[in-house]
């Protein structure tokens, strides 16, 4: 059959996908075309929704973000039956995130979780160890930043992260809140938990970074802007996804070999622990696909262990199959991946499952509240109270 898969994958990712598809084609005799999409997930999401709403038959398989499953569930085929032999291999939490009302909406292709990047050389210079708590991180950052500035780099900053008002801030803030024992905004059972002192404290702490250890402009940073500062050597700490790892070690990078990663710091107080927001991508089959059999075949292929292994080796993407973390080939090619297992195990999902189709709106309200706090419009406590009211209203009787 002739299949088409839509993907927001980029450059190398796309080339990798193509190479895997070639294999698939050779194995099955199907042909697959890739329809690339812009890498902005928001753009993709809108587009897919429209296509699906209009019953577009031109696309068979979609690559979906981890948070989309509940929102697009109606338009994708249930893969439970087809995948019953392999689901067990994947991390259960990921499979769970793709299961909506008992329906397996998408199969995981790879997962993603951020880490704290830090400058080995600078920490050594000032005799510091990688921080394990935010407070520690803050202090270290401040000290090194002041020291470096005095040493003649006025551009030096302590910590850069994703502070723009967008999905990325939801991820960052969820980590702060979660790591401080503040819950995960909306709990798995649907209760709205965000308005609590620990959450407020976590966000207030972050607000305190702006203008001190983080530049004002951080309020407008997305991944690339923050990486820019970091990769120029102008930041001590940096929160980002694994992709920044290989780029930072690129040949032209001034910080090549000078940095390393550790799990994100924990907060303090009750229930504090390191937390990383769960990312990752999945493959889903459109219910409008003219040839669902073949499409499911493709989806299974793309989430299979062999593809995930290739992916890990070529793309340094984190596999969703637990067994692969112990794979020697992967460990040899990407030594960082086994190390990331720890980070991954601390991963928290965003509340997309409980909030169902309202997730985007919930996320938007959350990041707005956080962004307001960061930019000094009200304290975290005030903003979270308002947020709770809004969320309650949005929730109505039930999500």
């Amino acid at each position, binding site marked *: 059959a002739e299949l088409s898969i839509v993907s927001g994958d980029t450059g*190398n990712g796309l080339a990798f996908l193509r190479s895997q598809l070639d294999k698939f084609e050779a194995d099955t005799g199907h042909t697959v075309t890739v329809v690339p999409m812009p890498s902005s997930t928001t753009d993709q999401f809108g587009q897919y929704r429209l296509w699906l709403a209009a019953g577009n038959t031109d696309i068979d398989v979609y690559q979906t973000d981890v948070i989309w499953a509940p929102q697009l569930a109606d338009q994708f085929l249930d893969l439970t039956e087809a995948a019953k032999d392999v689901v067990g291999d994947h991390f259960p939490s990921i499979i769970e995130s793709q299961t909506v009302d008992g329906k397996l909406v998408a199969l995981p292709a790879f997962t993603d979780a951020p880490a704290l990047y830090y400058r080995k050389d600078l920490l050594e210079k000032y005799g510091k160890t990688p921080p394990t708590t935010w407070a520690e991180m803050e202090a270290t950052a401040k000290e090194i930043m002041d020291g470096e500035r005095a040493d003649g780099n006025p551009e030096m900053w302590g910590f850069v992260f994703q502070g723009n008002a967008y999905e990325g801030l939801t991820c960052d803030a969820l980590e702060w809140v979660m790591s401080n024992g503040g819950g995960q905004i909306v709990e798995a059972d649907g209760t709205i938990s965000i308005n609590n002192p620990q959450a407020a404290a976590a966000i207030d702490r972050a607000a305190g970074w702006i203008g001190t250890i983080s530049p004002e402009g951080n309020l407008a940073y997305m991944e690339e802007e923050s990486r*820019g500062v970091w990769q120029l050597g102008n930041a001590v700490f940096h929160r980002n996804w694994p992709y920044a790892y290989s780029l930072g070690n690129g040949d032209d990078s001034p910080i090549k070999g000078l940095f390393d990663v550790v799990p994100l710091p924990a907060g303090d107080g009750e229930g504090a622990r390191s937390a990383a927001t769960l990312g990752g991508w999945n493959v889903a089959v459109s219910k409008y696909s003219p040839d669902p059999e073949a499409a499911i075949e493709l989806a299974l292929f793309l989430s299979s262990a062999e593809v995930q292994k290739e992916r890990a080796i070529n793309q340094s993407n984190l596999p969703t199959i637990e067994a692969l973390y112990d794979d020697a080939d992967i460990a040899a090619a990407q030594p960082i991946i086994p190390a990331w297992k720890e980070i991954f195990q601390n991963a928290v999902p965003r509340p997309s499952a409980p909030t169902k189709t309202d997730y985007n709106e919930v996320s938007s309200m959350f990041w707005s509240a956080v962004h307001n706090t960061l930019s000094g419009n009200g304290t975290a406590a005030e903003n979270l109270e308002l947020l709770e009211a809004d969320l309650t209203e949005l929730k109505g009787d039930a999500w």
Partner: protein
Amino acid sequence: MTATFDLWKLTKSVLFYALVVFIVVVSVFPFYYAILTSLKSGTDLFRITYWPTSFDLGNYASVLNQGSFPRNLLNSVFVSAVTVIGALFIAVTASFALSRVRFRGRGLLLMTILAVSMFPQMAVLAGLFEVIRALGIYNTPWALIFSYTIFTLPFTVWVLTTFMRELPVEIEEAAIVDGASPWVIITRVFLPLMWPALVTTGLLAFIAAWNEFLFALTFTSSNDTRTVPVAIALLSGGSQFEIPWGIIMAASVIVTVPLVVLVLIFQRKIVSGLTAGGVKG
């Protein structure tokens, strides 16, 4: 001619050219910066420079080799050209009717035409999608040409109507007496007098179509039918969050240059005094 007079004249022209230079610098600087950026790669991108430090055409090479960029360029040319030619053709005749023939409801009609441009593009996306699928032109250049009419047509109609209104009545009357039909009046008498307006609307509409993104993204679903703005959005770095600035800037430079050439060619037609000498009054 006293010395002060000369001085004043000199100051004036110096000021004038200073203004010209200022305008050009402001307009071109970001583009210049884009060119600079397009010649950089890697971490260099994050470094501020004012002059080219390296001359690396690698980004250009990768744009042209990546996917189907040349093909997308051709698509864009085709789509924009057909859109503009079609819109101008329809608009020229329509604007004759709207500017030179008095009939009841003309103002209302003009307002209706304008109303089409008042809806946010996103809002019509769903409906337009349905129409395009119904017409069976989804994922063809015609889908874009078709949907671009929604913003080029009202614009061209309004502008040409406005300009056609200004042409002297006497000249049209002379043509009527000479036995010219409305069609002949439009094509042989009015159009040559409207070059500035035609070229201007044509260029503006062409650029609008050339740069359109949302429709282009929604109504095409394969690399071979996409246009450059989409292609640029699809240009990407090695991984998800990485934005390949160098390549994007190279691509932008590549797509902007044809437009600049187009302007250079057609701006000659933006000349004044086309109606001079025709009538007295």
